[in-house]
């Protein structure tokens, strides 16, 4: 954090311009950038998204348009325009700087992509040049805003994107206004998320990431995200309900079942990551073989699915029984692996779980009747898993509901929303209880925890088994979604999720010990390889670099647990919590009653 109370040397901009000019440049530049999205940037529609039409933005131009609007909005708020004051409660420069950079980034990324992909600057229309120039203006304006000059360039630059410490508290809202606000934000979130899933080509997805990252960063430095999390803390159950409502609405917004497929895979991946979060985030047990439990659930479901390739092809459990069987098999497997290994601490546990995870995959590979008992069909796996059917509702067919068509994946998506709801409930309830506290205590200091009467082994085994069960449950759905189960995806590391390394990365990247973190992490980690197919074999490299950068600059993950945030960013101050966010539960209860 930068020290804003330092004896202010002369406050002036990095670019020497008067304040009025800087602001004018920001506003005018923002508007110009927005307007330039309506021009033709290139002459051929070979570049995806068709940027050739004057008068209507296409593809990446929409992103420039959005980023330009955001820049202009913050610029107007900086002028103190009535009704926009809430955008800039601390009246700091960082949101202006960041939105300007975002608009510049996405515009220039587009222009450069056009030039590179089509082979030369000649492919740009004058509109492209105008956009390029227009998007530079707000950046110039932003860096002309006055900031205390410390004489050190690095410090000066940091000051431009710093979040101030004291952000004035908002005026209290009435209960219904808070809820209305949460509803609006959830709807916006759904729209943004849906846009990301629906991006049709890699360039658009990268542009989308640029805009989203800078916009969220800007909102964060403006203090708006903090304010919103406070609202959420007041209305926890309502927010959770809204989140699930949004998740349910998603497939109805999709006309193409392919995107529902992405959605269901994200949900499976996210659910498993949330299960892993119990093991890693709460109990602090580094489990490197976690994906095996997903595999156990999937294989169990496949074996009792009635597939003709199953060893028990005559057996067809109803789904609820198959789900229970899968969860129970994972539970047993979890206890079997946990019982001997959980006596080990730290690194040893990680290595042993890694070993067990691989043993699962290799064993499944070998149980083909030749090298072992004939159970899993070896590398061929169990194909032709029939679709689920609930009370005559066949998941394999498209259904028309209230004028919307729900395809096969949309059906499974909705089932997965239900399962994720169960897992979220299990996670939140377990975390906030005697057992959850003992997990955290074990993670913090195992010796002290046992000296406080916690049976470390037992408590760890419960975490391990619970995590395994939840993964197994998700696995039962995943077997049906993918039609077949094969040993290969259940490995330690691979180029596509799910695998243990990706699962762990989803938890760490998203934010250990939070509910939303692993889900967000899973969504990102699923979408990146899915959308950036042009990276091909370099996607793992890119992923590694991204992970290193994130861990360097935000070790607590994208969504920070309060504990972890304080752990990694020593503020040197006593942590004096906001009185209203003290205990999550009672606050919710009283609010719900009001």
């Amino acid at each position, binding site marked *: 954090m930068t020290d804003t109370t330092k004896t202010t040397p002369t406050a002036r901009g990095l670019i020497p311009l008067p304040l009025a000019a800087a602001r004018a440049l920001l506003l005018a530049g923002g508007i110009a950038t927005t307007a330039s999205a309506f021009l033709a940037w290139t002459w051929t529609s070979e570049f995806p998204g068709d940027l050739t039409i004057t008068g209507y933005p296409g593809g990446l131009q929409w992103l420039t348009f959005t980023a330009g609007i955001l820049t202009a909005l913050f610029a107007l708020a900086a002028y103190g325009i009535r009704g926009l004051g809430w955008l800039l409660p601390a009246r700091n420069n960082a949101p202006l700087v960041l939105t300007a950079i975002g608009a510049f980034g996405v515009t220039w990324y587009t222009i450069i992509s056009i030039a590179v992909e089509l082979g030369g600057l000649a492919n740009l229309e004058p509109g492209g040049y105008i956009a390029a120039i227009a998007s530079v203006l707000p950046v110039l304006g932003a860096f002309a805003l006055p900031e205390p000059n410390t004489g050190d360039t690095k410090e000066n630059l940091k000051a431009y994107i710093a979040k101030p410490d004291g952000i004035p508290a908002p005026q209290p809202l009435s209960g219904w206004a808070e809820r209305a606000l949460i509803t609006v934000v959830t709807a916006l979130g759904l729209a943004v998320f849906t846009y990301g899933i629906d991006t049709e080509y890699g360039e658009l997805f990268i542009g989308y990431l640029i805009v989203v990252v800078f916009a969220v960063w800007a909102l964060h430095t403006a203090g708006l995200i903090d304010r919103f999390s406070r609202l959420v803390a007041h209305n926890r159950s309502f927010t959770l309900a809204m989140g699930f409502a949004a998740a349910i609405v998603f497939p109805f917004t999709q006309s193409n079942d392919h995107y529902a497929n992405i959605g269901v895979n994200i949900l499976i991946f996210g659910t498993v990551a949330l299960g892993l979060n119990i093991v890693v985030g709460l109990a602090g047990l580094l489990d490197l073989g976690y994906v095996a439990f997903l595999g156990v659930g999937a294989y169990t479901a496949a074996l009792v699915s009635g597939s003709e390739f199953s060893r028990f092809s005559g057996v067809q459990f109803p789904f609820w029984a198959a789900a229970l069987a899968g969860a129970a098999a994972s539970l047993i497997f979890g206890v079997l692996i946990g019982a001997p290994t959980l006596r080990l601490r730290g690194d040893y546990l990680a290595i042993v779980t890694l070993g067990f995870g691989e043993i699962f995959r290799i064993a499944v590979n070998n149980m083909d009747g030749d090298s072992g008992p004939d159970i899993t069909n070896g590398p061929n796996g169990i194909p032709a898993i029939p679709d689920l059917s609930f009370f005559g509702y066949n998941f394999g067919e498209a259904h028309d509901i209230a004028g919307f068509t729900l395809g096969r994946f949309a059906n499974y998506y909705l089932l997965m929303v239900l399962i994720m709801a169960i897992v979220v*409930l*299990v996670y939140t*309830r*377990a975390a*906030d*209880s*005697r*057992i*959850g*506290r*003992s997990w*955290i*205590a074990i993670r*913090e*200091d195992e*010796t*002290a*925890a*046992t*000296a*406080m*009467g*916690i*049976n*470390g082994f037992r408590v760890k085994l*419960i975490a391990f088994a*619970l995590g395994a069960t939840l993964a197994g449950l998700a696995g039962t759905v995943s077997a049906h979604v993918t039609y077949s189960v094969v040993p290969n995806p259940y490995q330690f590391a691979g180029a596509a999720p799910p695998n243990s390394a990706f699962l762990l990365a989803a938890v760490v990247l998203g934010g250990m010990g939070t509910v939303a973190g692993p889900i967000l992490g899973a969504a990102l980690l699923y979408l990146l390889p899915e959308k950036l197919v042009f990276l091909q074999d370099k996607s793992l490299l890119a992923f590694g670099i991204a992970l290193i950068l994130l861990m360097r600059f935000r070790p607590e993950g994208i969504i920070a647990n309060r*504990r*972890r945030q*304080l*752990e990694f960013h020593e503020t040197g101050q*006593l*942590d*004096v*919590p906001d009185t209203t966010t*003290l205990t999550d539960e009672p606050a919710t209860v009283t609010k719900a009653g009001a």
Partner: protein
Amino acid sequence: MNNMTTPVLEARDVTMRFGGLTAVRSVDFTVNSGEIVGLIGPNGAGKTTFFNCLTGLYIPTEGTVSYKGTVLPPKPHLVTMAGIARTFQNIRLFANMTVLENVLVGRHTRTKEGLWSALLRGPGFKKAEKASEERAMELLEFIGLADKRDHLARNLPYGEQRKLEIARALASEPGLLLLDEPTAGMNPQETRATEELVFAIRDKGIAVLLIEHDMRFVFNLCDRVAVLVQGEKLVEGTSEVVQADERVIAAYLGEPFEGAPGEAEAAEVAAAEAQNASTKGDAQ
């Protein structure tokens, strides 16, 4: 002193060897109900090791420890369950949990809500959680940290961390409390307050066994003092007896103990101790 002196803790012939080193050698030791007993001895005498043997963190090479007549299994959680709680020489709080959560973890042995009741959240669960929180708040009030219930433990000043460790230990409703250097690193006022606190704990009917280097503190407080030197119990008796014993003076104090050592001196010793401790092994 209490005239109903039933033994709470009985250590018999406790020996702890680390390879060739015998850290504790055939120590017999008793703490009676209502007593405050001090355990003193020079650095490396084996006091902390002895505590670890009592609480099951170490499995003694020889000997047994019994609490109120029953022999304790050398498992820390069972020892706590039985009724012995402890603090650590180098504070071992759950740093990233709040003050209240730390105390709630201390309640672990006196509550029994398992995973199922947490998931189902029946009325029993809510009642138990509420009762636990009330009990924890009582303890925080007792110790004087009630207003900091939602601070992270790591952000408390040193003296308050020591207090919180005591509150956390008390939360397990022990019959015997073991304090390993409760005043290490404290200033004189805080030491005095800790003295009051130990008396108050005894008045709740909890026997106290404490390791301390601050001699004034020990001799003010303790009904009985035992001296451990090189793993062996040298002397045991009232403050007067121990202070007068030639061997103790020779082994530990180096000089007659008439004018009690100055605060500065005690603090120096304590500081050196704390330093020592931080470089030492796992279960201090």
